[in-house]
């Protein structure tokens, strides 16, 4: 929950992923993954284990155990708090039921850390239509979260808040030609309760500040509700020499005033037993209405935010993945296995979030903050 624990977390709820074809259950598989995020003074790493298995011909069950081990000395932490270490554990269980051309899915996810407890249930139904050219999915997710606060590594007994979240989703997957398929997704999410961080602060002009910096900090204050709408379109094309090209665009808007565009292009090229993926992702957003890097005075407005993820910024991500297929003769039950490696490099340019670690004469003239991050994944997939 703390300021910097905003990274690699869930690896989850794979059953909640809308199926490309509703009339087929996913393959039996086991995945063991190690993930590591390193950027902006934050390192988060850990393992994840996923097992998916059919039971009979109509049911498929999946279970996931995931760990985040966080070591944080982010810019937020070093300017207003102290570096810390934390661990988050997550369990999820999901069941798919196939009936004719429909698939029904339900699942449960629990995420637990020292100052945050999240319980989520979800359900979805997918249906194949029009000669199996179209698949429509409806999904619903409900999350109940308990928010706590740690003081000097102990839970503050006087602080306990709640947050509820609901997600309504629809997905339409469409076969367009012999070589092209598309999917449209739309999600509405409503949050209600304690939505800000109990740790994060906002900055305001204070000529009398004790440190002589010309500014001071006070606790951030967000609205108690947030509603967002996001729509996306993905098109995937099979190239004649056996490769694929994937383009994705998403538009996002919410009741806090954030507007965001996301675009991504992926290219996949097989080569012998290898599969090579390259991707470029671009993201841009406008700040929330109540965001400011430096407020003119204390208690300037009812709602105050200086979370850099609510600011105006752009982010570019370059990704490269390599997968190697193999079999093991000693294990005849194993249909095949894959050794996978993926690396992503993220570059974030903030347009109105300043690096207050740099001392300047006039508050608000500090250099803009920039962040780069490296994301590594190594995983082994076994199909049986």
């Amino acid at each position, binding site marked *: 929950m703390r300021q910097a624990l905003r*990274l690699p977390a869930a690896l989850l709820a*794979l059953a909640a992923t809308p199926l490309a074809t509703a009339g087929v259950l996913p393959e039996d598989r086991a995945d063991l993954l190690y993930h590591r995020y390193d950027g902006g003074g934050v390192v988060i790493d850990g393992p*994840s284990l996923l097992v998916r298995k059919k039971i009979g011909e109509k049911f498929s069950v999946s279970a996931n155990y995931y760990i985040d081990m966080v070591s944080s000395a982010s810019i937020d932490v070093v300017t207003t708090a102290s570096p810390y270490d934390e661990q988050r554990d997550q369990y999820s269980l999901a069941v798919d039921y196939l009936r004719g051309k429909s698939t029904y899915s339900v699942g449960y996810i629990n995420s637990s850390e020292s100052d945050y407890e999240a319980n989520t249930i979800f359900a979805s139904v997918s249906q194949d239509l029009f*000669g199996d050219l179209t698949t429509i999915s409806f999904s619903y997710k409900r999350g109940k979260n308990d928010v706590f606060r740690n003081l000097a590594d102990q839970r503050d007994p006087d602080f306990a808040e709640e947050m509820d979240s609901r997600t309504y989703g629809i997905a339409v997957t469409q076969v367009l030609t012999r070589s092209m398929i598309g999917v449209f*997704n*739309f*999600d509405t999410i409503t949050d209600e309760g304690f939505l800000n961080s109990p740790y994060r602060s906002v900055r305001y002009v204070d000529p009398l500040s004790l440190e002589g910096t010309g500014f001071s900090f006070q606790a951030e204050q967000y609205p108690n509700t947030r509603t967002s709408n996001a729509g996306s379109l993905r098109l995937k094309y099979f190239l004649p020499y*056996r490769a694929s090209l994937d383009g994705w665009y998403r538009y996002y808007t919410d009741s806090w005033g954030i507007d965001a565009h996301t675009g991504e292009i992926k290219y996949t090229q097989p080569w012998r037993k290898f*599969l090579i993926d390259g991707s470029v*992702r671009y993201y841009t957003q406008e700040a929330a209405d109540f965001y400011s890097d430096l407020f003119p005075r204390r208690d300037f407005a009812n709602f105050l935010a200086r979370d850099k993820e609510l600011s105006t910024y752009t982010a570019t991500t370059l990704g490269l993945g390599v997968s190697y297929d193999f079999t093991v003769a000693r294990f005849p039950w194993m249909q095949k296995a894959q050794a996978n490696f993926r690396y992503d490099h993220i570059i974030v340019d903030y347009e109105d979030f300043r690096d207050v670690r740099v001392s300047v004469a006039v508050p608000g003239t500090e250099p803009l903050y920039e962040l780069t991050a490296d994301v590594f994944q190594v995983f082994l997939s076994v199909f049986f």
Partner: protein
Amino acid sequence: MRSAARLAISLTAAVFGVASLAGCAPIEPWVKPYERENLADPIMAFDRYPVSTSYLDHVFESREGARGATGSAGGGCGCN
């Protein structure tokens, strides 16, 4: 909230409306099952590495203001 709910209801009605047309006039599939060799190739799967995709989606979601409509789903956490 109300406008979002209305939008969701409208979309649902539209989808069911389109789906109901299937009962009026059968739509001839323009891509036959035996013509789906390319689409069935593993390199055309939307989510070939579900573990990796979910992880990356979460990396982005917890660092960005935007959320949703990615095609995958995660549970809550104190990552904001």
